[in-house]
């Protein structure tokens, strides 16, 4: 193994080492951190952000960004809740919500690829539009007491073999997307488009399709995350998901994916989401004021990115 390989391994392992260090430090400071109940709670919290961040990874690998994730989550969640309230089978409602998310994401993709609007601007606009649509749809009120359907409630809060179902959902999605990214030509093309649109275009890659896929996928994942939240609370909030885009982007960046596209991997994103979740959970357990929590989170992100630069 030569030196470049060693450094590339360290680079890949960096976030994981950070996560383990974080686990050790927090568990030393407070031994209730490692209790099963807390860990289950941790994974429940992480799963929402991680699922969104998986989609964001695809988007950022194409050198894009999606600011509208929180709004897509809220809108699809609200529509799903309304459908359930009006008597639709909850499982069917989840599927409809997923299709809606897919559609909302595809709109982003079309604006960015065929419309040639900068991703930041396009999704900034749809972030506002989708949020507005949610408020109009819900009249600004939460949609509550949806159902007593057990299967539906379990989707957000149940366990299977002692593991929270949202975490299982997260891992299934993780493996599917890992496969897509590493083992399919679509995944390879995603990296290629982010590496150089010019080279990819000349090589005959249909770059618009690759981009639309990335954004549509993100929309779908937001809908799934929205379904988990709605199921857990048994209610849909019109303000759900506000600010989630920042946590998702932070998870991707912490995981070592380059914001300029073409470089990174979804394993890193999972670790990044776990780091953010662990920080949130750990700082709460340690009774750190939520004001300080924000400062710590910001510092961790800065430190991680700086460390990444040094090695490069």
């Amino acid at each position, binding site marked *: 193994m030569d030196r470049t390989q060693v450094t590339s391994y360290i680079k890949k392992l960096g976030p994981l080492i950070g996560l383990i260090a974080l686990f050790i430090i927090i568990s030393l400071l407070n031994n209730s951190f490692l209790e099963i109940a807390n860990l289950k709670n941790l994974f429940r919290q992480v799963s929402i952000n991680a699922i969104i961040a998986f989609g964001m990874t695809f988007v950022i690998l194409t050198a894009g960004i999606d600011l509208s994730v929180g709004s897509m989550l809220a809108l699809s969640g609200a529509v799903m809740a309304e459908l359930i309230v009006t008597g639709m089978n909850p499982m069917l409602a989840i599927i409809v919500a997923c299709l809606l998310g897919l559609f909302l994401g595809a709109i982003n993709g079309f604006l960015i690829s065929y419309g040639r609007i900068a991703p930041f601007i396009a999704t900034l606009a749809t972030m506002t539009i989708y949020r507005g649509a949610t408020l109009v749809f819900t009249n600004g009120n939460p949609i509550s007491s949806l159902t007593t359907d057990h299967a539906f409630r379990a989707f957000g809060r149940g366990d299977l073999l002692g593991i929270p179902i949202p975490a299982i959902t997260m891992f299934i999605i993780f493996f599917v997307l890992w496969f897509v990214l590493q083992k*399919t*030509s679509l995944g390879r093309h995603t990296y*290629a488009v982010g*590496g150089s649109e*010019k*080279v990819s275009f*000349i090589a*005959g*890659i249909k770059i618009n399709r690759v981009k639309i896929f990335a954004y549509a996928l993100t929309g779908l994942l937001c809908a799934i995350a929205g379904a988990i939240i709605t199921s857990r609370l048994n209610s849909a909030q019109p303000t759900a998901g506000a600010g989630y885009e920042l946590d998702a982007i932070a998870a991707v960046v912490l995981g070592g994916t380059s914001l300029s596209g073409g*470089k990174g991997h979804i394993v890193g994103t999972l670790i990044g989401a776990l780091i953010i979740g662990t920080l949130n959970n750990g700082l709460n357990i340690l009774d750190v004021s939520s004001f300080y929590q924000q400062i710590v989170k910001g510092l961790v992100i800065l430190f991680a990115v700086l460390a990444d630069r040094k090695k490069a």
Partner: protein
Amino acid sequence: MEIVMTGIAKSFGTNEVLKDVNICLKPGRVHALMGENGAGKSTLMNILTGLHQADKGHITADGKEIRFHSPHEAEDYGITFIHQELNIWPNLSLLENLYMMRPKRSRWGTLDKASMRREAKQRCQELGIDLPLDNEAGDCSVGQQQMIEILRILMVNAKVVIMDEPTAALTERETATLFRIMRQLKAKNVAIVYISHRMEEVFSECDDITIMRDGHTIRSCPISDISANEVVKDMVGRAIDDFYPERTTTPGQTVLAVNNLEPQGHFKPISFTLRKGEILGVAGLMGAGRTEIMRALFGLDKQEGGTITLNGKTITLHSPSEAIKAGIAFITEDRKSEGLLLDFSIAQNITLPTLERICDSPIMKQSRLWDFAKKLSDKLHVKTQSISLPVSALSGGNQQKVVIAKWIGLSPSIIIMDEPTRGIDIGAKRDIYDLINTLTDQGVSIIMVSSELPEVLGMSDRIMVIHEGAVAGIVDRKDATPESIMSLATGGE
């Protein structure tokens, strides 16, 4: 100021660009610097103005040894370079561009716009030109942008002005203005270096001439001592030895017919044909529009008119993926930004356009991809320890082989190669020439755009010469001489 450069040598890596160059620039005279693309003209001038440092040789100004470490330093000394690609900020006004690096400040340290405007206007008046100083530079014509560069160097009291192909993008009127200003500069005892391919301008505007070839000074004399024919001979004068493999393929029937194709930009309709197994060389000066024609042919740029007939069928190409489907491949001239994904491995680059074809499915089959990439990289003699290494670790010649491998993997029937051997060493060049011949033996037709005349003459079955966006002529190999091609390329008879 009299500049004397003696015994200048310069290498970039293993590439010896300048071997022994001598030139003397006299005040109040316009000195033409001529030579083929790649002869070393720009490098020489970049050494004079401090962008590069000479490996060997001396530069003196009025007898005093000089050596600059940056173009800025050279400018302070009065030696200025107006590049072909103008250094402008397109988003700023002409006035702001003019004073960008040397702004005038008021007593308070703020920018003194009024006095800058006053001075600029006065300078314009002196030169007898009219410039829209407040317009964004990007919206102005190349001629106007160039005038800003000239104004700028006049403000630093330039004693030596180097102009690289200054008229390449100017209209006739702008050219006339430029020449008038050059004469004014001459009258002020400024020494001017005029790099150009345009024979007519050189003979009407210049006093002295230096001709370079392969990093050597071939001749340096007053312009009155030389004829246009002698200039061309000096520029191209090397023998084409057996460096180029013998052509054994006899071209078959016509596979591609391009009729009145109109690429984007200033072009006259382009027509030509390509036969099975033929190499069609495309010659012309830089900026003549060769690349643009090829981009239109590949569906990269919009085609504004004309028809492309492939194997008897008229086709319209809107994108590279359609061209690829039709069996056309395009090896672009800029391998770094258009040909390769530098972070990808050699294998990943080679298989990029062919993933689904190799695997017959959207799911990648690693071993098939590996075998495919390995076979091609061996076929092209890519020198590397492993094809899993990033392509950025390879030398230029080997990178170019990877680009070619990538396209050959598609088994195209027509390959467009734009400067296929630019910036690569002799060994790799020879490998590529052999490969081109093998391909044509197998019935692949090749369009080879090249700025290296010997390469075009040595490899092509026919040569199409482009001059200012039009086909100046298509010459059979047996009738082609360096002189006849160069003459067509420069718009001569």
